[in-house]
């Protein structure tokens, strides 16, 4: 420990102010992760005895089934879509290629309550069935949407793009020559898929699957709304319902164990995929499919988008346009403005921090700085509820000490200045979404040639001048796309906002969730559709990026 601290101080002084920044900011953002991690070591037997006798088995089994179910569903959907789109030319392929990513804009909790509205007893589908066949409730069986399997299906429908994006790149990088080798060897196309194409894409598919599973574990809105008890709902109830922060943080630590297994799988798969990289020669040429087969393929490919985006979107739009009554509109600007302010502050702060991290690493590449960057990029894997607890614990402690201190010396209590304000929210967002911004700034800064820095150095710029005169202008596109992605992610974020928001502070996501939970689905439609529409922006950017990669491979 001593040695570690010494080395830290030394490397801080060897570097510049940017290195010091990255160490301090990295430590700050790593704090919630450590709090959760260490709370797990302050094992409280009483809590665990109580938990394991009551809810824990249910949490574990539900969370594990949910994660595996979603991982499986998303992998199947994403892989078959990617395979077809890479290997076949059919009428409408361009449209499908664009639409396939749209479910990314649909948060799971929104699709969940939309389908509930559509499919529950009073919904249009069941009503239609009863009216057509003149049945009563006892006469027929209809699957229950609000169930674990319902959650698995709906989450798979919105999370498959994670697998699709990676699998598509992997498939399209496979050389045309491989297929020719199989043809020469008399290996059938189906066998080729299972013996060559799929194994080669396996690491990429597994990475995507692991990401989908992380999202499933992190989900709070869907499972809470469906009444399925998982870790995230458990953590929320333990804290909100019973005010037991200790049990909540112990549960969070336990959930993190699962998350870390997924991170390991993800990292290992990414490393494998480098060994399996088959970027040789020309990419596979897509086969033309015409006539009835073309139509069938088109329909097959459009199913996930139809169920994962179009149907819920149309339902939301209908609710908004036809049934929303004006009295609800009165509150809408307030939530929208709150959301916009929160997302704007968050994206500016987070992107600026990410930029400084990337720049610090470029100025003085050291193990320490890289280590901290790796640490702060871990946040994407942690569920919002867990991060919320991780932020709440230290900030709450600081607030209490601060109040005691000011009370003692100035006879004045400022209240919860950290844990009860927007500060806590921005802090939590920074932990969760730093990696989103870092991905962009890191990739962008690596594209700037080192000779640029040297030229600027020779011409007398200080590091700070260089940042503003060279890097920021060159990184404009990366900064903008990082900002947009973070903005949309904050807009959609539910559990951390729900736990950490100041009293009576509502955002679109929170309001949509609360209204839906109160069974006011129609009123929830307007804030929901706002979130979905804004969420389409990054999908457009992503589609363009993927098209660019395609053109490079062609």
């Amino acid at each position, binding site marked *: 420990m001593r040695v570690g601290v010494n080395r830290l101080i030394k490397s801080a002084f060897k570097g510049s102010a940017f290195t010091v920044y990255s160490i301090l900011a990295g430590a700050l953002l790593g704090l919630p992760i450590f709090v959760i991690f260490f709370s797990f070591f302050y094992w409280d037997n009483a809590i665990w005895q109580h938990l394991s006798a009551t809810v824990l088995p249910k949490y574990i089994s539900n969370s594990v089934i949910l994660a595996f179910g979603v991982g499986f569903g998303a992998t199947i959907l994403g892989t078959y879509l990617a395979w077809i789109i890479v290997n076949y030319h059919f009428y409408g392929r361009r449209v499908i290629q664009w639409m396939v990513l749209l479910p990314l804009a649909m948060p799971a909790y929104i699709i969940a309550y939309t389908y509930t509205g559509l499919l529950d007893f009073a919904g249009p589908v069941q009503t239609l069935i009863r009216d057509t066949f003149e049945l009563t409730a006892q006469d027929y069986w209809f699957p229950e949407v609000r169930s674990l399997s319902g959650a698995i299906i709906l989450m798979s429908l919105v999370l498959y793009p994670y697998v699709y994006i990676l699998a598509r790149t992997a498939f399209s990088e496979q050389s045309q*020559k491989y297929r*020719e080798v199989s043809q020469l060897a008399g290996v059938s196309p189906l066998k080729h898929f299972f013996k060559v194409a799929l194994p080669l894409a396996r690491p990429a598919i597994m990475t995507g699957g692991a990401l989908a599973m992380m999202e499933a574990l992190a989900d709070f809105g869907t499972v809470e709304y469906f009444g399925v008890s998982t870790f995230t709902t458990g953590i929320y109830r333990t804290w909100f319902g019973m005010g037991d922060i200790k049990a909540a943080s112990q549960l969070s630590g336990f959930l993190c164990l699962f998350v870390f297994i997924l991170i390991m799988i993800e990292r290992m798969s990414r490393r494998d995929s480098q*060994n399996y990289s088959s970027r040789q020669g020309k990419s596979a040429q897509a086969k033309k499919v015409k006539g009835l087969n073309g139509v069938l393929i088109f329909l097959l490919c459009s199913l996930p988008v139809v169920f994962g985006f179009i149907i819920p979107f149309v339902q939301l739009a209908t609710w908004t346009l036809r049934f929303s009554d004006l009295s609800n509109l009165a509150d809408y600007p307030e939530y929208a403005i709150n959301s916009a302010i929160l997302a704007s502050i968050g994206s500016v702060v987070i992107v600026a921090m990410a930029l400084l991290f990337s720049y610090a690493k470029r100025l003085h590449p050291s193990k320490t700085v890289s280590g901290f960057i790796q640490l702060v990029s871990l946040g994407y894997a942690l569920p919002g509820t867990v991060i919320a607890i991780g932020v709440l614990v230290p900030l709450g402690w600081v607030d209490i000490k601060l109040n005691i201190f000011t009370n003692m010396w100035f006879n004045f209590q400022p209240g919860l200045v950290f844990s009860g304000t927007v500060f806590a929210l921005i802090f939590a967002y920074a932990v969760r979404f730093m990696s989103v911004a870092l991905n962009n700034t890191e990739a962008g800064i690596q594209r700037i040639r080192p000779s640029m820095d040297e030229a600027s150095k020779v011409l007398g710029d200080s590091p700070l001048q260089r940042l503003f005169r060279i890097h920021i202008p060159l990184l404009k596109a990366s900064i903008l796309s990082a900002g947009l992605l973070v903005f949309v992610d904050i807009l959609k974020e539910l559990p951390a906002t729900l736990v950490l928001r100041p009293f009576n502070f509502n955002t679109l996501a929170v309001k949509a969730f609360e209204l839906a939970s109160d069974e006011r689905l129609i009123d929830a439609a307007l804030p929901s559709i706002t979130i979905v529409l804004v969420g389409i922006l990054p999908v457009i950017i992503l589609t363009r990026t993927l098209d660019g990669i395609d053109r490079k491979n062609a």
Partner: protein
Amino acid sequence: MLDINNLSLSYGTQKVLQNLSISLQQGEIGCILGPSGCGKTTLLRAIAGFKSVQAGSISIKESVVSDAKQQMPVAKRKIGVVFQDFALFPHMSVLKNVAYGLSKLSKSEAHKLAEEAIELVGLNDAKTKYPHELSGGQQQRVAIARAIAPKPDLLLLDEPFSSLDPDLRERLSSEIRHIIKQQNITALLITHDQTEAFAMADKIGVLHDQQCQQWGTAYDLYHEPATEFIADFVGEGVFIPVKVVAYENDTGSTIEPSEDKLLWLETQLGRFLLPEEYLVNGTFKAGDTAKMLVRPDDLRHQDESVLKAKVVGRAFRGAHILYRLSLNDSEPLLCLAPSHHDHKLGESFGIHLEVEHVICFPN
């Protein structure tokens, strides 16, 4: 073994090859040589069955595998292909890669054949390794082993050495020639590199202008090029201007005029008799101007020779020096002289002519 007759290939309306005819005997190694974009790869793909044929035919072992009407499926042709980038499967071990084309056989049979092929290319120690653990040369051998393991009737090699280092290229090409010869495999190689073609092939065809310009041995291509393009493309040499004149036996030459149609080629290096094949074709008549090919080995350096040229350029090549010489301020000639005949620029340089093959093209 391989017979290609009047083959024409095109992509849509764009013609790639026309009226190409070549043939290989069992155990012969053929080579298609040509600059990039001349249609070599297209030809290879047509032979393998990846590309349809517009006219003419391709036969393997006396049976037609491709013509304008029909096309035998790729897998039925019994062809092995070594791809330019090897196209090894990165997720399979060497053994699995080599056994890939043997899946129709029983496990033990496939295993045996694969091991044999690996043994043949000398990779016994690397059987369980994966492609990314191998060097470029080893990957190349795996690719060869995979192609020959199913004992194909014909082996096709697509620029097999282009992704390797030059010195590795030379060593491997002679090794691989040895393996192919030892197994009595018929092989066709395509390349843009003539040294590779000379080192590997028994027969070489040069593609240019959608045509196969000549199909023959390396010796033929170098010494008796059929077209001006080949004369220029293969080896080094210069064209010198010649004048075609009627034969007059005024020099006391020993040549007996069998017919009075004989023609002289008059050059700054002296007179040469126009070879008979040109007379048969009637390409030249007295009074024409033409150009004659002079290879560096047609000029021999002799210090005591009466014919003197001036050194205008020199390139040191180890055992030899390639001199550029000027005779009466004409176009420079090339002469390959042993390295210890070290002459400076501007020095006078005795040459002696030993033109064994008189090659001449109309202007």
